């Protein structure tokens, strides 16, 4: 046991010694490490840091192990007596730990070796580097002295600067070396400000110097500017004149007044509609087309030829018209198109514009061309037919087209409101004119038709001459008056007619001509059939003779079977209408109907009435003579009444007539004779009753006798002048008066009664 413990103690001791030795060596190592060059410190520090870490680790492990061993030693010391087997096993546990320690030792050795190697390598490198730096340092101090020498630098810069600027220009403008963008870092932009300052200062110091330089330029420039301005003024005046009276024009005037701009400016702003349809970038020297752009849908020809032609035209103009070789072609007018040309030193920009572009578009072109020259001047100058390197121009050029997109939209409103107004007025006028013209033509056609349809008018030809419609034709003088037809169609002012007279042979016109020639009275009717003229009615003998002698075209024969001489006709008419008895005679003389005869009352009345109904006019009856017509029946009645009223008075007591009865007696005789004639005419049977009367003086008998005697006396007397006996009868008085004292001469009479 004790030997074992001793062995352990020795082992510990040796370990301790080992550890102290190690620590001492480490210290030395650390010192040496600290002595390394400053330049190597970082590296070394890293390593030493590493080493430290390792050491710490190692220390920890070592301390742990030591602690463990210590613990184990105490345990062993305490438990040795009781635990022999346990002690052995613990020794077994210690063994690998020792092995570990040995391995740690080995690793440490290795590390040390490596540090040494590293140390040596690094020093070699540092030395080498220092050797390298030494000459550089010398050169650097040389340079420093040289830099301080301004004169030398100026000399050298003078040699380099032109090349440098050229290089910078190439770099800036060569799209292959830049990113195709024009940044503010370009040479131009860098120089812009100093150059501006220089110029400004130079001008400030000596104005006349620049004036001399600019002199040859100013003249043409001013001339050009004035020309442009004049063109603009003319353009704006034209527009102003167009718009000054429209409502829009008035609105713009208000706007001009409010905004303080001139009216022409407003008009220019509002009205200039244009579209840049094609843009040509043309190489100035060769006339070759560098780039060409056009609006979509624009028809393009051979743009290369166009480009060359533009150049040729410019050359031609320059050679032919410009004496000083400074005036150049600025625009070309081709129908609706205007080509505007702007020239730079190497390239010409040609814009094909439809419509009227505003003058400031030229400014845009000018700026565009300047920009193109600024960015691609060298490429433009060296252009030899290959346009690919200049493709980056396209986006710039496109602006010329793009800037027109707005105005394109404007121009798409093709019909402006005033235009619509004007168009509608024109349309309405046209419609109106069209309608009136149509109406006029219609009227003319109807008029011609009407003329054609008019019998006796034949339209042969028509024509327009000196704004008049002229009609040539033939006309029967009997036809309707054409002037009236013209008036009816309200064409008197527009139409002139020329008529050649002719005879229309249609029956209508033949009949008219017959009428004109014969002037038939209204009592004659005319009928023409198959060239035979039928005359009906009645007329004077003279007229009938005239009609029979008629000579007229288309009338071959005149038939007058039914035509009567007027008086014949009238007599026949009277006979027909009155149908008088045979006792009545009628004649017509000078259209007067003379009627005579004895008729009874009824016939008389009928005839009277019939005569009243006979027509009386200038062509018919002129009058009626009826005095010869007698109503015998009435006459007879009158006679009978007269006779029955008549008394024959006698002397007293006698059959002797009173002396004053002579006239009565004669009248009575006439009446009796007339009565007799009338009864014969009327075929009437009458009886004359003769009644004798006496006054009351005397006896009844005597008076009866006297009455009889007186009646017989009258009877005989009547018989004595032809009154037949059988027509008379003596009739007794109704009363025989007698034995009266007073004589009454009135009663001493004879009276009559006539009975059928």
């Amino acid at each position, binding site marked *: 046991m004790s030997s074992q413990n001793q062995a352990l103690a020795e082992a510990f001791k040796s370990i301790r010694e080992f550890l102290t030795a190690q620590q001492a060596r480490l210290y030395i190592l650390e010192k040496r490490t600290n002595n390394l060059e400053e330049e190597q410190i970082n590296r070394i520090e890293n390593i030493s840091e590493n080493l430290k870490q390792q050491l710490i680790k190692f220390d920890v492990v070592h301390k742990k192990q030591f602690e463990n061993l210590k613990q184990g030693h105490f345990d062993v010391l305490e438990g040795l007596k009781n635990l022999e087997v346990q002690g052995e096993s613990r020794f077994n546990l210690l063994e690998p730990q020792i092995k570990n320690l040995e391995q740690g030792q080995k690793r440490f050795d290795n590390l040390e070796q490596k540090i040494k190697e590293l140390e040596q390598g690094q020093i070699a490198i540092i030395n080498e580097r220092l050797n390298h730096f030494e000459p550089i340092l010398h050169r650097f101090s040389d340079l420093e002295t040289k830099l301080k020498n301004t004169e030398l630098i100026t000399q050298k810069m003078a040699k380099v600067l032109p090349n440098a600027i050229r290089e910078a220009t190439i770099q800036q403008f060569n799209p292959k070396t830049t990113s195709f963008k024009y940044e503010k870092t370009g040479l131009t932009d860098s120089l812009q400000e100093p150059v501006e300052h220089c110029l400004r200062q130079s001008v400030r110091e000596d104005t006349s110097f620049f004036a001399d330089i600019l002199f040859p330029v100013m003249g043409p420039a001013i001339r050009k500017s004035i020309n442009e301005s004049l063109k603009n003024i003319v353009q704006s005046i034209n527009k102003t004149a167009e718009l000054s009276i429209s409502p829009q024009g008035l609105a713009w005037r208000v706007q001009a007044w409010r905004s303080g701009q001139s009216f022409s400016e407003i008009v220019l702003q509002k009205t200039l509609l244009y579209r840049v349809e094609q843009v040509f970038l043309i190489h100035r*020297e060769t006339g070759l087309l560098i780039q060409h752009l056009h609006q979509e849908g624009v028809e393009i020809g051979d743009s*290369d*030829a166009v480009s*060359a032609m533009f150049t*040729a035209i410019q*050359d031609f103009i320059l*050679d*032919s018209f410009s004496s000083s070789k400074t005036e150049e072609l600025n625009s070309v007018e081709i129908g609706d198109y205007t080509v505007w040309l702007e020239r730079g030193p190497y390239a010409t920009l040609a814009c094909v514009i439809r419509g009227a572009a505003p003058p400031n578009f030229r400014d845009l072109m000018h700026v565009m061309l300047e920009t193109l020259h600024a960015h691609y001047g060298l490429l433009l100058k060296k252009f030899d*037919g290959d346009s690919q390197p200049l493709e980056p121009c396209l986006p710039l050029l496109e602006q010329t087209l793009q800037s027109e997109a707005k105005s394109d939209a404007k121009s798409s409103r093709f019909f402006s409101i005033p235009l619509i107004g004007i168009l509608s007025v024109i349309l309405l006028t046209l419609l109106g004119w069209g309608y009136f013209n149509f109406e006029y033509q219609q009227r003319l056609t109807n008029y011609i038709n009407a003329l054609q349809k008019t019998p006796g008018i034949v339209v042969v030809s028509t024509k327009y001459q000196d704004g008049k419609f002229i009609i040539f034709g033939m006309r029967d003088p009997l036809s309707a008056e054409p002037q009236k037809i013209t008036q009816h169609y309200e064409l008197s002012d527009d139409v002139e007619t020329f008529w050649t007279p002719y005879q229309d042979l249609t029956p209508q016109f033949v009949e008219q001509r017959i009428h004109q020639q014969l002037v038939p009275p209204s009592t004659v009717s005319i009928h023409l059939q198959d060239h035979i003229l039928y005359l009906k009615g009645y007329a004077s003998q003279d007229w009938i003779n005239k009609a029979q002698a008629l000579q007229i075209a288309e009338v071959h024969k005149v038939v007058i079977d039914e035509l009567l001489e007027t008086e014949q006709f009238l007599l026949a008419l009277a006979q027909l209408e009155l149908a008088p008895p045979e006792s009545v005679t009628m004649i017509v003389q000078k259209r007067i109907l003379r009627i005579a005869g004895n008729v009874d009352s009824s016939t008389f009345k009928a005839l009277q009435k019939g005569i009243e109904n006979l027509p009386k006019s200038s062509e018919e009856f002129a009058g009626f003579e009826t005095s010869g017509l007698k109503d015998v029946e009435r006459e007879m009645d009158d006679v009978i009444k007269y006779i029955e009223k008549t008394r024959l008075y006698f002397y007293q007591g006698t059959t002797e007539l009173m002396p004053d009865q002579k006239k009565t007696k004669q009248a009575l005789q006439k009446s009796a004779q007339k009565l007799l004639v009338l009864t014969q005419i009327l075929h009437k049977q009458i009886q004359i009753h003769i009644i004798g009367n006496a006054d009351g003086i005397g006896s009844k008998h005597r008076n009866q006798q006297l009455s009889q005697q007186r009646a017989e006396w009258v009877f005989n007397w009547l018989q004595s002048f032809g009154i037949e006996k059988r027509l008379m009868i003596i009739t007794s008085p109704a009363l025989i008066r007698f034995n009266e004292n007073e004589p009454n001469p009135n009663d001493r009479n004879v009276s009559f009664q006539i009975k059928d």
Partner: protein
Amino acid sequence: MAIIQKKICMIGDFSVGKTSLVGRFVRQSFSEKYLTTVGVKIDTKLVKLTENQDVKLILWDIAGGDALTTTTASYLRGAAGFLLVIDGTRLPTWKNALNLRQAVTEKIGEKPFVMLLNKADLEEKWEITPPIIDEKIQLGWTILKTSAKTGMNVEEAFFKLATQMLKK
């Protein structure tokens, strides 16, 4: 494939057939009618030189004359080459052509050109004889007998000039 544009001028005396050559070359047509060119007439034609090289020839058919006028001279500006046309049947046109070439060179510098002895269809009437021609061939000039009427060598002439211009 890039298209290169080149300006070519037709140079020669009156009535040597410049316009006819262009007409034959561009439109494959020929007319016996003589129409004098006033000023300049421009045509274009695309010529395929190689599989990868097209050249667009801008042909400036300049009014003919025995000497350069101011206007004619300005039309030459920027030309990459020219065709010197001679009427084989008229000796003076040969002499004028030589003067014209000289004038053109003075104006635009040495440029490739091809000399065309035109009207080869009338060779029996030619006044220009082989010795004169040979003399110039010795100098390295490209000389071709052409006929705008038959089309002989017309394509070749333009093709040759185009090739020469591109080589430069």
